[in-house]
């Protein structure tokens, strides 16, 4: 459960880095690709050789702007790039080209929801800026401190990133997780990033501070701890919860909170100090002279805004309006490919709720087992709709339909083909079923008597017998109805 700090408000802001999915890097034509052999995706520009100059990738600008617009930001018509300067072997030029005081996007917001789809709060987004990623260091040895040295791979150097900075509107690790989840969902609708935290295409730093009740000063005056490089939603929550407790404990003991940067140890679940205030940065930001200011036409920004797909908040409302429960709607909303699947199946079939029910139960189970997503489900939406239609027509019972769906999933068959191959179509023809019902009544006089004497249970036995004679294919509703009908009639002499 969320950590508590009695007598304090917990103040959390997140900085999220997202790698943009472009064909090429931010400032050169090298391919933007994960997993290539070391230093095989480099050129003079991203190696930072003497004499080179950056040229900005228009697709990265478009994707960053779309992210901003989807998060309700204002996209600036004039923004500029700045150099953030520090020495590290993964930073070839000795500076990172980033945006300092005129970021591409500003002043957005994001609504967050709990796991059951209930609205929690709206978090303000301070800014989104575009910048280049650094290369990758591989340490020779177990840990940085006892490594004999490190190896530098610059394939990732220059890959486009957006940094999304929230206002400090979050107040627990759990909320931080919901925020990240909501953020990831919105971005997933735009298809601008792989958003894989484990591959580093989405990374999170958390700023955590405790504010005493009745604090009159500004938030900036509170000692703030930054936790760097959190690599999963779960770890974001764990690290923040640990940090809140650590700070609360220190304060309770009368100790001070140091302004510092901390790391998170996945194994112990603890944060640890990486750098104290005494080693604070002096990044010496200044405007990047190699890149003139970026000017965007208002019409271009408007066109990007207009071309945005329906976003999660709207989709969520649509699904609820179609009759889905909040919880089910939430599960679908999280996954844009599920929403697309749902929409297609819904359109083909006509009713929303059964589609959602089948997607979230049987189809989800099959997809999970096969490690697939809705985007590449072997059963296309139209075929799920066809299957559901057969249930409505009484061709299939619910149980049969499950069996048919499995077959469709495994073989990639259409509903019709699977039904035909399995020979599982339901018998709903009353004349045919009546014959079987009459036969069963004739064979089981004793049970019939029991039923007529008031033993309701006897009916189930008789239904079972009819099903047995029809190899399970008789429509159970019809069987039930006919049994009751025939048993309520007076006993007629057999053979009449």
């Amino acid at each position, binding site marked *: 459960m969320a950590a508590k700090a009695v007598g304090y408000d917990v103040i959390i802001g997140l900085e999220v880095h997202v790698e943009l999915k472009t064909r090429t890097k931010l400032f050169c034509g090298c391919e933007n690709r994960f997993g290539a052999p070391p230093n095989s995706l480099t050129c*003079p520009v991203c190696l930072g*050789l*003497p004499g080179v100059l950056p040229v900005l990738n228009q697709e990265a600008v478009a994707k960053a702007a779309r992210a901003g617009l989807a998060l309700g930001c204002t996209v600036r018509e004039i923004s500029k790039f700045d150099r953030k300067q520090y020495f590290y072997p993964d930073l070839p030029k000795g500076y990172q080209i980033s945006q300092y005081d005129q970021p591409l996007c500003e002043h957005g917001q994001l609504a967050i929801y709990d796991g059951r789809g209930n609205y929690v709060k709206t978090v303000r987004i301070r800014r989104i800026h575009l910048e280049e990623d650094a290369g990758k260091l591989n340490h020779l040895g177990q840990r940085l401190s006892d490594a004999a040295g490190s190896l530098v791979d610059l394939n990732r150097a220059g890959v486009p990133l957006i940094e999304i900075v929230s206002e400090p509107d979050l107040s627990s690790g759990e909320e931080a997780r919901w925020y990240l989840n909501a953020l990831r969902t919105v971005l997933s609708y735009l298809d601008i990033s792989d958003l894989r935290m484990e591959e580093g295409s989405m990374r999170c730093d958390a700023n955590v501070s405790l504010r005493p009740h009745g604090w009159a000063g500004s938030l900036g005056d509170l000692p703030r701890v930054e936790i760097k490089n959190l690599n999963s939603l779960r770890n974001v929550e764990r690290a923040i919860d640990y940090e809140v407790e650590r700070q609360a404990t220190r304060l309770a003991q009368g100790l001070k909170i140091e302004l510092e940067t901390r790391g998170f140890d996945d194994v112990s679940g603890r944060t640890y100090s990486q750098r104290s205030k005494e080693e604070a940065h002096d990044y*010496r930001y200044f405007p990047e002279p190699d890149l003139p200011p970026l000017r965007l036409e208002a019409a271009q920004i408007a066109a990007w805004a207009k071309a945005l797909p329906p976003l999660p908040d709207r989709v969520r409302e649509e699904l609820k309006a179609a009759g889905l429960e909040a919880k089910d709607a939430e599960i679908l909303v999280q996954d844009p490919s599920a929403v697309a699947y749902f929409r297609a199946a819904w359109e083909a079939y006509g009713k929303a709720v059964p589609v959602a029910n089948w997607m979230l139960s049987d189809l989800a189970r099959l997809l999970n087992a096969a490690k697939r997503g809705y985007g590449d489900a072997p059963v296309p939406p139209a075929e799920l709709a066809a299957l559901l239609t057969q249930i409505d027509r009484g061709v299939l019972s619910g149980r049969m339909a499950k069996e048919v769906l499995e077959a469709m999933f495994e073989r990639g068959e259409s509903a019709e083909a699977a039904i035909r191959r399995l020979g599982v179509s339901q018998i709903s023809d009353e004349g045919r079923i009546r014959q079987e019902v009459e036969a069963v009544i004739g064979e089981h006089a004793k049970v019939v008597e029991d039923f007529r004497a008031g033993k309701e249970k006897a009916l189930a036995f008789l239904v079972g017998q009819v099903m047995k004679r029809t190899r399970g294919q008789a429509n159970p509703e019809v069987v039930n109805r006919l049994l009751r009908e025939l048993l309520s009639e007076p006993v007629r002499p057999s053979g009449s």
Partner: protein
Amino acid sequence: MNLLELGAAALAAAVREGEVSARQAVEAYIQQVQASEPTVGAYLRLDEAGAREQAERIDQASWEERRRWPLAGVPVAVKDNIVMEGMETTAGSKILSGWVPPYSATVVERLVAAGAIILGKTNLDEFAMGSSTEFSAYHPTYNPWDPGRVPGGSSGGSAAAVAAGSALVALGSDTGGSIRQPAAYCGVVGLKPTYGRVSRYGLIAFASSLDQIGPLARTVEDAALLLEVLAGVDAKDATSVDEPVPPYRQHLDQPLPGLRIGVPAEYFGEGIDPVVQRTVEAALQRLAAGGAQLVPISLPHTPYAIATYYLIAPAEASSNLARYDGIRFGLRQPASDLTQLYESTRAAGFGVEVKRRILLGTHVLSAGYYDAYYLRAEKVRTLIRQDFEQAFAHVDVVATPTTPDLPFPLGSRSDDPLRMYLSDVCTVTSNLAGLPAISVPCGWAEGLPVGLQLIGPAFSEDLLLRAARMVEAVTERPRWPWQREEA
């Protein structure tokens, strides 16, 4: 015919028509390099083999191909802060000793595509930081007019090579006067184009918002011809500008009747050697006699230009020079940890002037000083720019001395950085304002050349070259040092 006597246009025409082979031209220049280098020291590296190879290629090409080459067979020297694939490039620094670039600068590609022959790489003050070429980590360069004096800098090697006849034309780079000041000291023509006129891709950056590559040549005509090849937008340089490139050379002799020449009070008088001032004023009078109007003007923020420049340029330099870290290329000192690697490599690789500027630049950008130094300087830069905008409402060009003095003796200023900085007083303003400026010889005093500088509005190179051609026409030039040696 002595091939050295031919101008670039004439030589290229002769090579195109097959009257002279590129190989002959190259051999003549290699011979002159060998004759002059012991006393001049203009080059850091000669590429005889590469030059001969390119000459062969030109000579073997068909007439159809050759006729498209404006610089066919023209031997060019390239300042060693401009990279050329496969040829060691050091920027005059030990930190780049042995570095062989795996790519070429856009201007080098354009030269080669125009049929030029690159003879070698010329000396410069380390990373172009200096006004005398004495801050080269390798060796000094001597003024061909007087070997006891500096050739100016930082493009001292390129200017000296042209004056010494060891290259027909040369490339320099100009951040605060580094083309024009050595051009003036060596009696040659030097042009700093409008910021963005020529691609900087492949120019080892000193101060990115001020740097420009430009031509050094014996004559205005050669400079015009070279600029035609160099100028134009480059997709690899986001600060290069997509403006049409006029046929500069073709326009050269179009007259400029009633040209209004602004003469700013701030560039004459105090701080200017009277000999230099007299020579420049006499040249202006000759222009007036030919019909030009001399208009007294004021550029009131000129006195602040040196301070502005020496805050902005080091700030950008401190950032541009962060990449020399001993990891991907260049010098690397042995070290047991990362910080030591950085600190000892950079301490061993950079010379004293470069260190001064890195530290100065780091300071003016650091927390607590940015507003007081860097930001304030960038605002004063706006004022300096506005001075020119206002002036160009009334005049076509502005004329000033290129340098406040004659070439000074080697060693006389290298221990006093501020004094050295002050000698850039006439040239830094056009870099700060992004404007084109040309230095053209306007007379000789005490046997030493004096340069006249013309500054014009953005993208007025055409006009500047024509005006400089007028100065050239009214200036009597003594025989070149290489012509005297021959005699």
